[in-house]
């Protein structure tokens, strides 16, 4: 999912043809899904730990492994939040699907602070 997002993201930025809205429509729900899964995964990871690294691994490589691990979790949490925040502060509706709109992160004015709009099914 994360790998998919990388490709969708750069593709979305590169073009103004009808593929653009399609990629954009994938980008938002995927981002929030990654955020939700990362938030579920993080406590599990902290509780259960990770397999030990091989004991003969040089110090520098050990450090790199740990750092990239932390960076990965930080990105999974922060990037979707940044996207959500940018949409909110730009005054866009944070539309995940046609039927699901998230609350903006930064509330701005009366009408922006509307509850999550939701409709069950499409006719």
């Amino acid at each position, binding site marked *: 999912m994360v790998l998919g997002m990388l*490709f969708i993201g750069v593709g979305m930025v590169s073009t*103004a043809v009808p593929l*653009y*809205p399609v990629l954009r429509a994938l980008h938002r729900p995927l981002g929030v899904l990654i955020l939700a899964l990362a938030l579920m995964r993080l406590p599990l990871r902290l509780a259960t730990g990770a397999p030990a690294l091989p004991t003969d691994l040089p110090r520098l490589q050990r450090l790199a492994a740990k750092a990239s691990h932390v960076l990965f979790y930080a990105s999974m949490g922060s990037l979707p939040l940044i996207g959500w925040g940018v949409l909110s502060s730009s*005054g*866009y509706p944070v539309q995940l699907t046609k039927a699901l709109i998230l609350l903006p992160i930064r509330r701005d004015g*009366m009408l922006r602070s509307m509850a999550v709009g939701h409709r069950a099914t*499409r006719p």
Partner: protein
Amino acid sequence: MQPSRQSLIIPTALIGAAVLLFAGGFAWSAGWVGAQRISGGNVIAALDDSGGEHPGYRRAHAKGVCFAGVFDSKGAGAGLSVAQVFQHATYPAIGRFSIGGGNPLAADGHNVFHAMALLIRTGNGEEWRLAMDHTPIFPVADVASFIDLERATKPGSTTGKPDPEVMTAFLTKHPELRAFQDYLAHAVLTNSFANATYYSINTFRFTNAGGTTRPVGWQFVPDTPPAGLDKEHLAELAADYLFKEVTARTVDGPSSWHLQLAVANLGDVTDKGTVAWTGPHETIDADTLVMTAVRPEVTVTCRDLNFDPTILPFGIDPSDDPLLAARSKAYSTSFTRRASEGAGPSAAGEDLVQELARRAAGRPTSIQWCAPSIGSWP
């Protein structure tokens, strides 16, 4: 035991191939390799090249003014779309009138064009954003042609006018532009933003409660009778004529439009913004837009909004018209650029503030500033 040099070749090759495949796929997705793509940046570059660089402003329709009002729905549109905006109720709306071109300081007579952008919010978090022109059709059908058009219409450095030879060559390649030129030549060029008709330009898909989806185009038809400008003497118009006129008019009282939804007939072209529908159409008078207040851009919200016509409520979807994706992308890039550049002073700003104060000073208090509260609109 150390593995032999030979036995490392295959794993190394496999890892290398995987990395190359991944990097290659990524580069292709990003458009760094393969066929040349047109990005939002290419559209903006073409607009900047043609109209001059004006950092901090919209790259097209740079000179504008904000308005507020209400969208009063009679419920008649519900037969076409389940969108809440067609349910019988009154919804707050804000919008923006603009002339054409990328120069925020252009004189109104230099580039007379009427465009209306609109944002309607319903109570369920949805928005309907509309970006409409006083022309029912667009000059070209896709983004590549639009970039070519901007290049062809670039004013010459000495003449200030497009090169006629380049224009002739463009017309030969793009005969579809003639319909737009003919429309501009024959249609009444109204003397106010308030008495112009505004068209959806592109077709959209409306889905009703029965699950039926139909292609629909629309127009906002003014209740104010149209009166035309003298097209021969446009250059003599005062620099902010249209903006001052609509400001003064709205202090005196609101203006309104009827939203007419037209369902495409079989055989109508619905995926090309260059082809007008002809003949009678099933038309529904769905809503009334009442404009109650006009304010310079610098003081209110509309400047900081992107009127992306693909931001639609549940029950309205874009059609197959490729222009919609191109508009969405170009508007988005323009929005991002001007957000990072920082907004400049409102183009038709200071004068309008003074005009408004002068007008309001002589008026009885019964005329209230009655804008609905949207965002930071005062």
